[in-house]
């Protein structure tokens, strides 16, 4: 047999018909090359070890390997884009071509995409702001819940209106003993702490106002004398 690689081989199929020669040559060549391969002797041990491993662990291991490969590929694929976007670019100006001024000798470095850095900065600031708002809202809700729970658990009327958050705003009633309190309808209002403004009920949600069914606040209604002390 003669190959284009120039390497002569003894041809076991010499003398057979040309139509079968190719297959015989291929068979001989593949056996000659592949039979030189000697696998490791611990194949059965490795198979048994794989069988002893739970299939879920094997699947997770394969998944992790594939994900790692994918992550590396993504990094490799994105690297030219980042390199191109952040590459320095000589700023051409008239002095640079004319000559020998100090500024022309050291032109300033600018990124290839000039809007990228401001855009990244704005995006970062927006992310921080949104995160802050979300976190602050959640913290405020937690504090509100904790405060209301404490208020509900305590029977002291003086603690009933200890929370001033919400849409209540400043109360027209001013006085040293005046605090804002939540009503069961959810609308915080100002009332004297000595009054019967606290009533147990469902925990109000801050910011949730029952606009459709506004009940007059007891503290704003005219109470019989002697009750609202």
């Amino acid at each position: 047999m003669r190959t284009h690689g120039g390497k002569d081989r003894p041809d076991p199929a010499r003398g057979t018909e040309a139509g079968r020669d190719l297959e015989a040559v291929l068979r001989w060549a593949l056996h000659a090359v592949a039979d030189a391969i000697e696998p490791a002797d611990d194949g059965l041990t490795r198979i048994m070890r794989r069988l002893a491993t739970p299939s879920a662990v094997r699947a997770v291991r394969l998944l992790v390997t594939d994900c790692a490969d994918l992550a590396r590929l993504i990094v490799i694929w994105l690297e030219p884009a980042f390199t191109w976007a952040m590459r320095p670019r000589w700023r051409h100006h008239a002095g640079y071509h004319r000559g020998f001024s100090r500024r022309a000798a050291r032109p300033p470095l600018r990124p290839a995409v000039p809007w990228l850095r401001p855009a990244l900065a704005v995006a970062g600031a927006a992310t921080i702001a949104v995160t802050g708002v979300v976190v602050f809202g959640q913290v405020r809700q937690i504090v509100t819940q904790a405060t209301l729970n404490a208020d509900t658990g305590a029977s002291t009327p003086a603690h009933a209106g200890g929370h001033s958050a919400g849409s209540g705003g400043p109360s027209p009633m001013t006085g040293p003993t005046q605090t804002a309190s939540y009503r069961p309808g959810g609308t915080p209002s100002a009332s004297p702490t000595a009054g019967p403004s606290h009533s147990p009920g469902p925990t109000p949600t801050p910011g949730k106002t029952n606009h459709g069914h506004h009940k007059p606040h007891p503290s704003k209604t005219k109470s019989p004398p002697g009750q609202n002390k």
Partner: protein
Amino acid sequence: MNRSLTDAALAPIPVQWDADHAVAAIYGDHYHSLVRLAWLLVQDVTTAEDVVQDSFVAMHTAWRHLRGGDQALAYLHQSVVSRSRSVRQHRAVIEPNASRMPGAEPGAPSAPDNAAVVRAVRLLPARQREALVLRCYGDLPEAQIASAMGVSEAAVKRHLAGASAALRVVVEVDP
């Protein structure tokens, strides 16, 4: 110890064997041949061993659905071909960036691949290479090749004809 891939009919495996016995018996008879078959498909000894070991694990799992050694060996052929195909597809994605992946050893020869015929076989399209390797190295008939590749016998004939036509250009056979 290392029989041809078609010797399964000469050594039938009892159906009542459990999966461990079957794996051990088929391993002793066919492991080396299957690794070499896989090596011809994936061109890497370590990967070929992994492919064959994974196929044995899959066969162990599917043993209760297999009825004897013939079906087990056919299952192994199918699994080896399928997994080798997956390896090549994975490699087709990885290889363009292989030199930049950690642990890459550019230019490291994995096997004695200096034979021109094997090089020519490796240049064949995937399906043609599978059919040719199963035919010329595995000595499988076309029906079993079709089963292992998951295609029809007509497709196997077509792939073999294409491979022969391509290799005839490369390999010159003296009359």
